[in-house]
C-alpha cells in the first residue's frame, strides 16, 4: 500500500468493466504493442492484483476470480513441458486471449476517435429555426358508383314496409302425423320401428318433406306416449326408435 500507483489501482476497482477490461488496462501498462505483450507478465500482474484485492478484503465479482483461475491454468500450461494431448494447445489459448485483448483495445480506441469527431449539436449545428417543409394533406373523398347505387338500394329497402315471406314448402303438420300414427298403431301391431310407420310418404319423397315427416312423426309419438296411448323404446343411443300402441283393456 506504499505504492501510490497501487492506490490508484484499488480506487479504480469500480471503474473496470469486467476482467477483460482490467487485463487490457494492465496490458497497456506494459507500454508495448498489444501483439508484443508478455503474456506471462500479464498473468502475473493480474494474479497479483487479485491477490492484493483479496488481501484488502475488497469484494471481487465472481468473473474476476474465474478469470484468475483460468489465467493460472494457462500460465502453468505454458510453463510445463509441451503436452501434445492438450487441445487446444496453451499457445493457441494464449493467442486467442491476445486477440481478444486486441479487439477490445481496437474498439476502445475507435470509441475514443468517434467521440472526438465533430459532433452535431456539440461542434457543428444544423439550422436553428428551419421554416419546415409543409405538406398540405388534402383529403380527397372517394366512392364508387356501385357504392352510391347500393347505398340507395339500402335506403329504399329500409323504407319499404318489411314483408317477411316464408317460402311455401311441403311440410307434414303435427296434426296429420298424429292422425297417421294413431291409425297405424290402432292396427294392433307390436313393436315397430317408428320410421316404418311413416312409410305412407310418397315413393320418391322430397328430402325436406321426409325430414318434416320424421320430425312431426317423432313429436306425434312423444305426444301419444305422454297421453298414455303409446309406448316408446330404444335399445341404445341412436338405435331405431320403436313404438307400439297401448290399448285400454
Amino acid at each position, binding site marked *: 500500500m506504499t505504492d501510490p500507483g497501487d492506490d490508484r489501482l484499488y480506487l479504480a476497482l469500480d471503474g473496470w468493466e469486467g476482467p477483460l477490461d482490467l487485463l487490457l488496462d494492465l496490458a497497456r501498462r506494459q507500454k508495448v504493442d498489444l501483439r508484443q505483450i508478455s503474456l506471462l507478465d500479464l498473468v502475473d500482474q493480474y494474479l497479483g492484483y487479485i491477490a492484493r484485492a483479496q488481501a484488502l478484503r475488497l469484494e471481487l465479482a465472481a468473473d474476476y476470480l474465474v478469470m484468475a483461475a483460468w489465467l493460472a491454468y494457462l500460465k502453468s500450461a505454458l510453463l510445463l513441458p509441451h503436452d501434445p494431448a492438450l487441445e487446444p494447445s496453451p499457445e493457441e489459448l494464449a493467442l486467442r486471449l491476445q486477440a481478444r485483448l486486441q479487439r477490445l483495445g481496437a474498439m476502445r480506441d475507435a470509441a475514443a476517435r468517434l467521440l472526438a469527431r465533430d459532433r452535431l449539436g456539440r461542434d457543428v*449545428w*444544423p*439550422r*436553428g*429555426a428551419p*421554416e*419546415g*417543409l*409543409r*405538406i*398540405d*394533406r*388534402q*383529403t*380527397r*373523398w*372517394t*366512392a*364508387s*358508383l356501385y*357504392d*352510391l*347505387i*347500393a*347505398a*340507395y*338500394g*339500402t*335506403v*329504399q*329497402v*329500409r*323504407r*319499404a314496409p*318489411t*314483408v*317477411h*315471406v*316464408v*317460402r311455401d314448402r311441403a311440410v307434414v303438420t303435427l296434426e296429420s302425423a298424429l292422425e297417421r300414427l294413431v291409425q297405424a298403431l290402432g292396427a294392433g301391431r307390436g313393436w315397430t320401428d317408428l320410421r316404418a310407420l311413416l312409410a305412407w310418404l310418397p315413393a320418391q319423397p322430397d328430402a*325436406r318433406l321426409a325430414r318434416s315427416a320424421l320430425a312431426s312423426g317423432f313429436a306425434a309419438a312423444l305426444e301419444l306416449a305422454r297421453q298414455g296411448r303409446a309406448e316408446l323404446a330404444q335399445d341404445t343411443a341412436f338405435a331405431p326408435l320403436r313404438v307400439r300402441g297401448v290399448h285400454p283393456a
Partner: protein
Amino acid sequence: MTDDLTRAVEATLFASESPLSAEQIARHLGGVPVAAALAQLVADYAGRGVELVERGGCWHFQTAPDLAHVLRREQDAPRRLSRAAIEVLAIIAYHEPVSRAEIEAIRGVQTARGTLDVLMEAGWVRIAGRREVPGRPTIYATTTAFLAHFGLASRRDLPGIDELRAAGLLDPVDIALSDESAD
C-alpha cells in the same frame, strides 16, 4: 474566400433559433463590429435560394420569397366516404333538390350535420336555394363534379328503381329464410 468574421456571423445566424440584432451577434463574437460582415452576407446570398434579411433590427436567413411554393406541397389523402355520407349523397342524387328534413325522412335516421358538410367539402353537393314552404328550409342538389367523379353524363344515367330491383338491390326478402335449402 470569405473572411473568418463573415463566416462566424454566417454560422451564428444560421444556427440561431431566433433572429439576432447586430449587437447580439457582435456580443456573441466577442464585441467586434459586424455591420460590414452582414452587408457582405446580404450581397453573397442575393439571388440564391436563401437570403439574409433584416426585420425590425434583427437579422435572419430565410428562404427566398419566390420559392415559397417549393416549400409547400400538396398531397392527396384519399378517404372513403362513410356509409351515412354515401346514403345521403345517393338520396340527394335521386331526389334533388331535397331538404335535410326530407333526407332524414327518407333515410329514417337523423343526419349528422357533418355529413352534409363532408359532401359539400368533397364538392359533390351544393346548396340549391331554399324551398318556399314555412321555415324556408335549405335544399341541396348534386354538382357537375359529382357527375364527373361517378362517370355520369347526367343524373338520368343513374339506374332507375326498376333496374335496382332487377339487380337485386331492392330485394326485401330476408336472405336467411330463402337460403334454407343450402343446409
